[in-house]
């Protein structure tokens, strides 16, 4: 009986270890899989020249990613500009000013915002943001646009990244030791001075990490962006121009990718680029967050 239980323990432990290892290897496997599929293209053409080339003509074997990279950066950059101040102000209020009751009331609402599927954000964008930009915002600047443009995509994306940034920032700020706040307040600082000079300063790396996470999230967002960004493969010149972000490129062209030579490799390379950028940013921010956690615990 005892021996059987010992064996069970030993086998079980190894099994669990194996499954865990498998999950950790998943990240590596993803890179490997996408790399293998895009390898034929990488052998034929120089990666750097593809990244800076503006010509996207799959039928002629020309794959220039620059318009798509530029589109992604415009859209994501715009979204961050809009989302970061709003998210930080909200998180600061919930963490430093709001009573416990208000905070417990608002947190589920923010999670609710995070739980809405991206297609629904897309529908909302098409129904409200696109006409708003077309009929109100663009004429105000004296510009004409169909409404399916960078500004619309940025607005929708900003709303989608809000909950991510707020959630992580809130956690970081709430983890700042209580004593620090109390010392500042007892020295006669106002609430805002305490926030400005103590809490925000202490939480700065964590807040940065939170925003980078939001950036990574916005960078890879597909369905909502594809619905409002306009999808024209040209390097955009202003926020009222349409853009064709990288994720939209992958999602829009999967149907024909098997019929054109090297097209599948090109799309897999696009996925790999996306994965690389997001991995880089999120590894960086997670490392920062984890160091903070260890130091404050």
């Amino acid at each position, binding site marked *: 009986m005892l021996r059987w*239980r010992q064996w069970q*323990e030993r086998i079980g*432990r190894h099994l*669990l*270890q194996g*499954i865990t290892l498998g*999950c*950790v290897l*998943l*990240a590596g496997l*993803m890179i490997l*899989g*996408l790399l*293998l599929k895009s390898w034929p293209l990488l052998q034929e053409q120089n990666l750097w020249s593809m990244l800076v080339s503006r010509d996207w003509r799959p039928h002629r074997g020309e794959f220039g990613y620059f318009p798509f990279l530029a589109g992604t950066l415009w859209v994501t950059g715009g979204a961050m500009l809009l989302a970061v101040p*709003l998210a930080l*102000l*909200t998180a600061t*209020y*919930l963490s430093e000013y*709001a009573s416990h009751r208000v905070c417990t009331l608002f947190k*589920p*609402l923010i999670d*609710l915002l995070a*739980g*809405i*599927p*991206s*297609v*629904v954000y*897309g*529908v*909302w964008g*098409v*129904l*409200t943001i696109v006409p708003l930009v077309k009929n109100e915002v663009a004429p105000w600047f004296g510009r004409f646009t169909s409404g399916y443009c960078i500004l619309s995509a940025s607005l929708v994306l900003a709303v989608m990244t*809000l909950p991510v940034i*707020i959630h992580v920032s809130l956690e970081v700020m709430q983890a700042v030791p209580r004593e620090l706040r109390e010392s500042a307040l007892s020295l006669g600082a106002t609430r*805002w*001075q305490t926030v400005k000079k103590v809490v925000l300063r202490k939480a700065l790396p964590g807040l940065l990490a939170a925003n980078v996470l939001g950036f*990574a*999230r916005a960078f*890879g*967002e*597909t*369905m909502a962006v594809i*619905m409002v960004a306009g999808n024209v493969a040209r390097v955009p010149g202003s926020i009222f121009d349409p853009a064709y972000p990288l*994720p939209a490129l*992958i*999602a829009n062209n*999967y149907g024909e990718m098997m019929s054109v030579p090297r097209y599948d490799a090109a799309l897999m390379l696009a*996925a790999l680029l*996306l*994965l690389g950028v*997001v*991995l880089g940013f*999120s*590894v960086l921010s*997670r*490392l920062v967050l*984890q160091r903070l956690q260890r130091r404050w615990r």
Partner: protein
Amino acid sequence: MRWSWRKVEETFFRCLMMAAVVLVMLILLWILLTILVRGVPALDWEMVSRTPRGGFYLGKSGGILNAILGSLFLTLGATLAAFVAGLPVALYLTCFRGDSSRTAAFIRTVLDVLWGIPSIVYGAFGFVLMIWLGLRASLLGGMLAVALLILPIMIRGMDEVIRLVPRELYDSAYALGATKMETAFRVVIRQAAPGILSTVLIALGRGMGDAASVLFTAGYTDALPSSLLEPVATLPLAIFFQLGTPFPEVQERAYASALLLTILILVISGVARWLIRRYARQVVR
């Protein structure tokens, strides 16, 4: 003078922050109201009870039963798979590795990073896997991609719940002579069950709402899901395709479908939240 400047600054920023909070809440309200107001008039019984008929995408009669059932099957399968693979990992992290373990911290970081990978990349990777396995766009392929997508969410969620199980419980179990496996699977699981269930529901909601990962892998069809190896329709893609048509009647249906999806997900996450609250109290502390 100095004092009044401080006061002004304080008031200014307090107002700014309150405005930000109100704005965020208004946006949430705006989204929900838009979906509700545009969705309700287009929603009728035919939408949820029938499959698309001929000319459905030109505005003729039919419903999206194929997508509703497809989404349910696909997400349930994927959630089950992710649960079976994820539970051992979550148990391993806390029960076999201590809270201070460096390995566990490393694994958690990797999972957090996996969480942040865009779903379109999971879709592309799922597609690569399917080619290797010799599958074409099918229910099984979609399940595979969605299972991979929600695996990190599942593990990290369960991990957080299991970490809340008090240390004394382990010690009591060990003192009675239980092995670690027995403690993990008979004591810890039972203690964390409500939390685990709510994590599963949250992952379910996430899987159901995701479109980019099933785009390559599950395909789309007007027929009801019949076999694991056949393509299957999903709700998010139904919305996407319907909205992409130039016909207002079909676009109306996209709004109704969006409302349906939103309600489904809100109900699922509401139940999850209720479970956490309802059962959190009964657990030994």
